[in-house]
């Protein structure tokens, strides 16, 4: 068993009268692919937001690679090696796809020289390769605003991967992808993650995807983990079938 890379302990947060996190805890090991499932409003995205510093918990802690990151800013957490993609892709929509990736590259490399042209970054080939992995090489020069949602979701993930994080959170990576392409997308993503030995935590609604790509599943309900286990255990659990997947579906 590999070492623990992320440990969230008893995170609590209320907002607007809703218990968005109610003792959320999760321990993640470096070689894991964890799927987070649960109904809407269960606090899945809140959990990601808490772990990446977008919002701060009222109590509880998040430890990453032995360091307490609970109070750190998203920026500091990103620099420590946590990347994330978003439910609604967060991209520089007026820029080209490649520029989005190159900005991530510059951030990673710290290459901010005013004499450097962004589009002549010495490591630009690496970004083209990355774009190729997610199957979007042909979109490199397109303006993000003009691309469909599904592609944007992948670009969002590619941007996070360009940072070469040790751990990546992906918020519904396949939500904008047509169902017959989902596996293909997840295959390429998994290859990219494997190549970089990146730990991944992803929120997912499609149980087929969960079954195939997760090493462990956490079922979210009411701001905390109601159940966890292997995909086999979870996906056959009667309670999960009822609350998450919906009986008869």
């Amino acid at each position, binding site marked *: 068993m590999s070492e623990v890379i992320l440990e969230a302990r008893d995170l609590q947060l209320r907002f607007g009268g809703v218990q968005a996190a109610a003792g959320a805890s999760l321990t993640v090991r470096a070689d894991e692919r964890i799927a987070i499932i649960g109904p809407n409003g269960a606090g899945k*995205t809140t959990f990601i*937001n808490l772990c990446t510093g*977008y*919002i701060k918990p009222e109590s509880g802690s998040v430890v990453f690679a032995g360091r307490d990151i609970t109070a750190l800013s998203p920026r500091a957490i990103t620099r420590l090696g946590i990347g994330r993609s*978003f*439910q*609604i892709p*967060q991209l520089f929509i007026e820029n080209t796809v490649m520029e989005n990736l190159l900005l991530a590259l510059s951030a990673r490399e710290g290459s901010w020289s005013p004499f450097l042209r962004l589009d002549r970054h010495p490591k630009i080939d690496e970004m083209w390769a990355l774009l190729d992995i997610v199957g979007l090489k042909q979109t490199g020069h397109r303006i993000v605003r003009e691309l469909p949602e599904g592609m944007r979701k992948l670009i969002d993930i590619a941007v996070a991967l360009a940072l070469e994080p040790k751990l990546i959170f992906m918020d519904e990576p396949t939500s904008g992808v047509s169902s017959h392409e989902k596996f293909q997308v997840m295959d390429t993503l998994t290859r990219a993650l494997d190549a970089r030995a990146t730990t991944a935590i992803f929120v997912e609604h499609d149980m087929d995807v969960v079954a195939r790509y997760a090493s462990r599943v956490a079922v979210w309900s009411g701001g905390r983990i109601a159940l966890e286990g292997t995909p086999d255990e979870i996906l056959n659990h009667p309670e999960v079938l009822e609350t998450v997947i919906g009986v008869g579906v």
Partner: protein
Amino acid sequence: MPPEMIFLAALDGIAYGSLIFLVAVGLSLIFGVLGVLNVAHGSFYAIGAYVAASAVLAAGGMGLPTWLAFPLFLAAAILVGVVIGGLVEALLLRRIYGKEEVLQLLVTFAVFMILEDAQKVVFGVRPLFANAPMNWLGTVEVFGIFYTRYQLILIPLVALAVLVGLRLFLRRTSFGRAIVAVTQDREAAMAMGIDATRIYLFTFMIGASLAALGGALSSATTSLTPGIGSGMIVLSFAVAATAGLGRIEGAAVAALMIGLGRSIAVYFAPEFDVLIPYLIMVAVLLIKPEGLFTTVQTRKV
């Protein structure tokens, strides 16, 4: 400085703050609903003042009783707000909602430049004043010092009435509640079937009318000269930003702070009275970047 002087200074500060409040609250309301910072707001103040003064002078010339000035003030304010404000919103602003903020700002900046000159062409450059309403109300004596009832009582009362009236309007009437809904969440409000176009138009008219009302009230106490609008706009920016843009009660508090700060400065440090509004604004924003009365909202990701 004896304590009664502080009290006297405070009386001046309240009168001054009340006037700024009337102008600033209109600016704040417009921003809250339309999301546009109206640089031309000072021009509504100036035009309201000129129209009111001309009307009062004309009424005086016809031998009409002086008390008529007060309904005339209101009429002038509404006229300016509805006609000029309405035209600006319907012809110009409506075309740029959703465009970049910079462009919206600049459209109102252009309107400001045009109205400044229009006002000069229509009303001339000669200082104009109509002090009959102020004199008609007479004076009161406080600690042996004469104050005009107009500045000491009427203007603060009007400001208070506007504050209370706006609150009631926004909370109790369906139209007011629709305005609040748009302020809080534009998209949700529109999804609920609220006619945003109409809300925007009326809010702009109300905001412009308030600025014009401030101008109308000031026309009895001050000489109207070209350029009065450009000074007022910066002052009301300061009030609105200190309070937090879109905050109505906050604007009242900030206007009072600035009014009091200024008049006390005239006693203690007359060299710095003009700096007071800006210093208060910068100090407040340093501590609370979104203004005194605004809560920070995070973007949904």
